[in-house]
């Protein structure tokens, strides 16, 4: 499309620039992979080696030996996939309402939802910790206590939420909330692209509006849902602060938190850490390789309209 006839110097500049761009984007990760293939002694040698002299997979064995890294991967997978499914469902409903239906205050509602993505997750740290520790349910708890005092002794004196710390829910719930604004934005813009005629045809054929939603709109919106799902998944897989604070038991750590646990008090086992990073970002790299165009479409839909 944009293919004007460039002069030779321009073409060389573009090729060089592109090469630089690719190196810039991939070099740190490639360097980690190279590091993970060297043995500990080679790492502390000066001058440093670029290509590993003797390729060893010992570090990868170390990763799984020192800490239950497979468990970390499982935890991350469970949390991220659950959060993705729940968040996509909720965001799809909201996106359909905001993107397709004639609603009063549609734009204001969308702006409001998107604005919540600007809340720092850090602010949520302490109150969510309290909430997950277990707390009196507002409104319900005083009511029950009041009834208890009135003589209905079969009523409990308070209603407490369960302690969710060190469970998957402690992460799934905030991850759903943190990704909800961006997912809603993406899905809203996708629903806006689906032609209205498609739905009207179904309505004319005697479908109710709810039936039309499930039979006509749901299949067509699959690409948008996939895009939103990937972005939610990546967000959830990468989250660090909440996972560090809420799930402190070894067996409930997620991958980003787990990797920071390899470093000792003074020593940095760089070979092991780099091997762990390489394994830990594999799912992300796989997603990028498979869905690069979809991810970019989703990110820019989220960005340009926001």
């Amino acid at each position, binding site marked *: *499309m*944009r293919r004007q006839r460039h002069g030779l110097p321009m073409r060389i500049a573009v090729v060089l620039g*592109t090469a630089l*761009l*690719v190196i*810039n*984007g*991939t070099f*740190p990760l490639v*360097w980690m992979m190279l590091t993970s293939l060297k043995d500990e002694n080679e*790492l*502390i040698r000066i001058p*440093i080696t670029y290509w590993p002299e003797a390729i060893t997979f010992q570090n990868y064995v170390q990763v799984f030996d020192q800490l239950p890294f497979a468990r970390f991967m499982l935890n991350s997978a469970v949390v991220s996939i659950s959060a993705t499914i729940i968040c996509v*469902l*909720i965001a799809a*409903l*909201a996106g359909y*309402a905001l993107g397709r*239906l004639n*609603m009063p205050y549609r734009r204001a509602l969308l702006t409001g939802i998107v*604005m*919540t993505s*600007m*809340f*720092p997750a*850090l602010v*949520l*740290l*302490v*109150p969510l910790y*309290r*909430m997950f520790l277990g707390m009196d349910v507002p409104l319900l708890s005083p009511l029950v206590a009041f009834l208890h005092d009135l003589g209905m002794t079969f009523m409990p004196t308070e209603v407490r939420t369960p302690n969710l710390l060190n469970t998957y829910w402690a992460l799934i*719930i905030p991850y*759903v*909330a943190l990704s*909800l604004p961006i997912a809603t934005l993406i899905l809203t813009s996708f629903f806006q692209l689906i032609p209205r005629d498609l739905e009207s045809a179904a309505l004319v054929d005697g479908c*109710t*509006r709810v*039936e039309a939603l499930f039979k006509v709109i749901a299949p067509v919106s699959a690409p948008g849902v996939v895009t939103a799902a990937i972005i939610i998944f990546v967000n959830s*897989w*990468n989250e*660090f602060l909440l996972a560090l604070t809420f799930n402190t038991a070894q067996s409930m750590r997620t*991958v980003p*938190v787990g*990797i*920071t646990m390899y470093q000792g008090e003074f020593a940095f086992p760089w070979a092991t*850490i*780099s091997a762990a*990073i390489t394994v830990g*970002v594999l799912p992300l790299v796989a997603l*990028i*390789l498979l869905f*690069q165009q979809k*991810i*970019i479409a989703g*990110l*820019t839909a989220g*960005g*340009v309209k*926001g």
Partner: protein
Amino acid sequence: MSAGAPYLRKEGLALALSPATSAYRRPGLWRRLRSGNPTEAQLGLILLIPAALVLALVMFWPIAQVLWQSLHFERLNVPARGRPFIGLEHYQRMLWGSDMTWDVRHLLGWRLLAFAGAAGLWWGAARGVARWRTALVWTVVALLVAGLWMGYHPGEAGRWNDARFWNAFSITLLITVASVVGSFLVGLPLALLANVESRWRWLVRIALLIPWAMPRVLVGVMFAWLFNYTNGVVNDLLGRVGIAGPLWLSRADPAIWAANITIVWATSAFVGLILLAGLQSIDESLYEAAMVDGASRLQRFWAITLPLLRPSIAVALIFRTLTAIQTFDIPFAMTQGGPGRALETLGIYVSNTTNSLNLGYAAALAVALFVMSLAITVLYLRWIYAED
């Protein structure tokens, strides 16, 4: 009331009660839902309920709690003191320090002058020289300044402020400015390059997506290794061109720049992606028209690309600034906020305060962070809407 009113009212009542007319009423919400055919607005509201519930429970309720909590003393390691209400004391400590005393005699002359000014304003308002509302607002301001600020002076220790808060504030500010500017300086060329049609476009896309998709903590860990003094690749490359690389992560100044470079690497790709979308939405014919008019490449960039890219730039700017204010992961992973407190951003300060179990003060710090993001969002939004 006119003479015909009772008659009209009677008829209106009869209309409302007659069975014949109730058939003309639109079916209510419940009936429409039961029949599976709600109106669009009703269906929309119902579909929004789950999202509203989640946001209310996990976003708005906690934020309200943080606001409330910041007005209370609470240290989990001093359980005996409980959770008393202390008003704005935390904010006072944050902005002015904890060893402050309030004293009527402090700066008495200036305070008398402020009171005289307020009295003058009211005199003016009474005489019709100034507006009442202006007079009211300025009086409140003058009284607050005169009463609160001018009455405070350093206490026994002679300390004026929470040095740690202002240290964290200035580091956050420095990182915000440097990394936002840096990510645009890197991100714009990335977007321009990625917009060129070529066989290698898929590779370019991957190179743009990898920094975006990497967990920020792991980016920090990775770059800590790249910036390692003896075995890091950065110092090795610098050594090859004859520059002695600094002790990146154990001296304050290089550490800030190492962190900034890392943040720029991690975020410029996102800026590039947003700008790329903006570039692709620019109408090709504009460039052709400019070519016909004989505009040079640079002129086309300044006259077409940059102005039309403005919305994308604004969006990327907002997102980048907000994430930069909340910077936590990368400095935390690189040096845990060290050396000393050289990389202790506001985010790390909040987290450290939480870990030392001073929940009340941590909440106040979090509110400060929140207010900063809110202020910047509002500022940017006003700027964008003013452009429209």
